[in-house]
């Protein structure tokens, strides 16, 4: 069930009306929880059991951490074991088994792993990280264990952000879910604005670009260098419009229930360094990785070499989080190397200027997107070789799409963050807001591609 589908529109309207009429927080939580499970079951009801397993294990583990403080470590380990076990089984088991077999085969040891082809439950990486954040924070003493199972279940499964984030922290989301109130008119309008803006990003930019990028990456061996380079840039714009669009829609939907989800993107392609990029791109994941991986590894508190190592490990695992593929590992590795290199330069007092920093950062970011987009290492390598070989001519249609995509992205991603910060839009005149709403609806209805294309981050 996609946000931009009629089925979802019905589910949302029914839930919103019920929410409005229900007065107690408890019943509102039930309404949202029911909608969240229905939303998830629309994909595959069987995988609700995994959400329930995560919910029950982490709820229980956190409660017992308070009751039996001396077993806190064991309870945390149990929680992490179960969550990573679910993630590992459904997402990584086949990948590691196959990789191990290939490694052994290269030494002449024949091994054919009978890895069952498991379906990847949608959103598993997101809700697993979110629920792990809760038990880790309880273990650290940062949050109190939640005694209300319904409330905790809603924290794990809240439908606007269940399948592709933002990955919320318990400190931010749980207090809001515990005090669900009637959304004010301003919140409903702001939510609608965010939702429309996200929908514009998704259907107008991302889905349109996809039609031009996909054919180039389907056969990089025959595409010209310029077309491959343009398609790579277009993919960078596509995935940004797709994911930021989803996030805007998720934040908009949540806001219409009076819940404020965290900002996940802050104009990432204006970043002047890789560290800056990760403060702007998928902020909820980079925050999670920093708080629950990089800092526990030692962060930058140890030697310089240890800091570089921690950066590399964090980014490699961050890459692997996206998918069970060496492409994602390489993508993460490139960012890790880039971050370590930046740190190494900074340690020696070297800094890029704003413009040169932006150029270098974008070169690394977009080069890494090749590995993110290509379905296999062979395809990625073929694209890299294709770009480097300087062959063929540029396609005028791709150039036109690139110009239009850059213009549309800039329009929806103004440096002043007009669109992602509703409080700024609130200062608009009524005429300006009204015109925006109407034009957004008209553009969405009349200019959207006919086919519904799933959000790219649903696969993670």
């Amino acid at each position: 069930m996609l946000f931009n589908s009629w089925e979802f529109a019905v589910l949302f309207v029914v839930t919103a009306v019920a929410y409005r009429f229900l007065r107690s927080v408890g019943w509102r939580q039930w309404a949202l929880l029911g909608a969240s499970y229905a939303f998830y079951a629309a994909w595959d009801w069987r995988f609700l059991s995994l959400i329930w397993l995560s919910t029950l294990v982490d709820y229980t583990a956190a409660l017992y951490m308070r009751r039996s403080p001396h077993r806190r470590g064991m309870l945390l380990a149990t929680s992490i074991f179960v969550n990573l076990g679910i993630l590992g089984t459904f997402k990584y088991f086949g990948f590691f088994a196959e990789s191990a077999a290939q490694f052994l085969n290269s030494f002449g040891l024949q091994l054919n792993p009978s890895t069952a082809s498991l379906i990847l439950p949608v959103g598993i990486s997101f809700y697993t990280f979110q629920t792990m954040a809760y038990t880790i924070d309880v273990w650290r003493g940062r949050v109190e264990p939640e005694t209300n199972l319904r409330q905790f279940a809603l924290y794990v499964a809240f439908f606007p952000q269940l399948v592709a984030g933002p990955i919320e922290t318990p400190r931010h989301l749980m207090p809001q879910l515990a005090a669900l109130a009637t959304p004010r008119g301003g919140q409903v309008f702001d939510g609608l604005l965010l939702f429309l803006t996200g929908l514009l990003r998704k259907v107008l930019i991302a889905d349109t670009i996809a039609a031009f990028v996909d054919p180039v990456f389907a056969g990089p061996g025959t595409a010209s260098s310029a077309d491959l380079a343009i398609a790579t840039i277009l993919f960078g714009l596509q995935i940004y419009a797709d994911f930021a669009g989803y996030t805007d829609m998720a934040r908009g939907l949540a806001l219409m229930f009076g819940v404020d989800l965290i900002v996940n993107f802050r104009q990432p392609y204006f970043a002047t360094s890789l560290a800056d990029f990760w403060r702007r791109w998928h902020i909820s994941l980079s925050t999670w990785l920093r708080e629950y991986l990089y800092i526990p590894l030692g962060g930058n508190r140890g030697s310089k070499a240890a800091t570089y190592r921690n950066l590399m490990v964090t980014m490699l695992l961050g890459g692997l989080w996206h998918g069970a593929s060496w492409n994602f590992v390489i993508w993460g590795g490139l960012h890790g190397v880039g971050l370590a290199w930046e740190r190494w330069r900074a340690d020696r007092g070297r800094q890029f200027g704003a413009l040169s920093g932006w150029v270098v950062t974008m070169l690394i970011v977009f080069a890494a997107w090749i590995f993110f987009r290509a379905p296999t290492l062979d395809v990625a390598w073929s694209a890299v070789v294709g770009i480097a070989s300087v062959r063929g001519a540029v396609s005028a249609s791709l150039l036109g799409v690139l110009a239009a995509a850059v213009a549309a992205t800039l329009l929806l991603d103004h440096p002043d963050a007009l669109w992602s910060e509703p409080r700024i839009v609130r200062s608009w005149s009524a005429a300006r807001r009204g015109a925006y709403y109407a034009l957004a609806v008209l553009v969405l209805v009349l200019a959207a591609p006919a086919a519904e294309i799933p959000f790219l981050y649903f696969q993670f």
Partner: protein
Amino acid sequence: MTDPTTPETGPRRRRLVAGALALAILLLFEFGVARTKWAYEQTPGVFVNSIYALEDNVIAPGPEPRVLVFGSSRLQDSISPRLLEAELELDTGEAMNLAFPFGDVVASRLLYERNREKLSRARIAIIGVEMWDLFGERQLDPIQEFFLPMDQRLEHHGKDRFSLLISSVWKTYAMRKMAGHVAGGVLRGGPDLGPLTTDGRLKYFADGGLGPSSIDAGAQFDDRFAALEEHETLIGRGDRDELQRFIDLLVGDGLRVVVVHLPMRRDFVPEVDGRLPTVMAETQSLLDSLVGPELVVMETSLEVIGIPDNYFRDFGHAAEPAVAPLTSYLASLLAGLAGP
């Protein structure tokens, strides 16, 4: 970032004015563009535009019709009303080619129903059918979203039902698949009735001349028929019931009905036979099961009609030289019908 704990900053009145203004703009578009004929007259060749173009340029100015031709772009390009009139000794305008691109049986029936008073005075209706309409998944097109009556919208189940219900009251939504065509027509400078030929039909391909000596049959099969390969059986899918419904309507109005499946190029037929070995037989069987038509024609042999492969532009759209022999062949079949 919005802080839910901060007091509301936007005055209620301004929100209401913004909402009212947005609604006003949407209504202005709805009644100023989406529900006007002007928008569709900019590009008369596709979808709803075809219906309006046929009504304005063929049905309205014509006399009381005697022979009607319904169907898709293949019929549109193949049958000349003037030649048909000459062969059948009818007056000018008494044969009407009402075929148009995407003119499947539902769209054709809607065109007939919109103009039933005049068209029901005809004596013969020829319905052109295509295999991909009979066996393929029914596609929701703008013509249905625009013109389908409410009771027929409610008959639909599945994912298209929402679209059909919404488009019944919101024509801006129904316009979405044509918006690009309309915008293109406006940008090109307005109405272009070039495809309306002097022989009384809207042509799909405007230019004349022979077609290619050979085609990429595999690619053209993929384009038209590949979806059919996914079905284990072809029987029972698609528009058989809709076709019968149209026939019943015509017969009920006193028309005699002829169902035609136009031939395709010789070098395309082996591709169809190879990849869908039963489709020809199943099409024949399906057409034979219809109740009401006086004649069902599924002619696969071009030798009977006497035209070579390059009389087609592609797998089955007639080039200009094929129009006369195809029209004559159809006229000979109609002339052979028993009775008055």
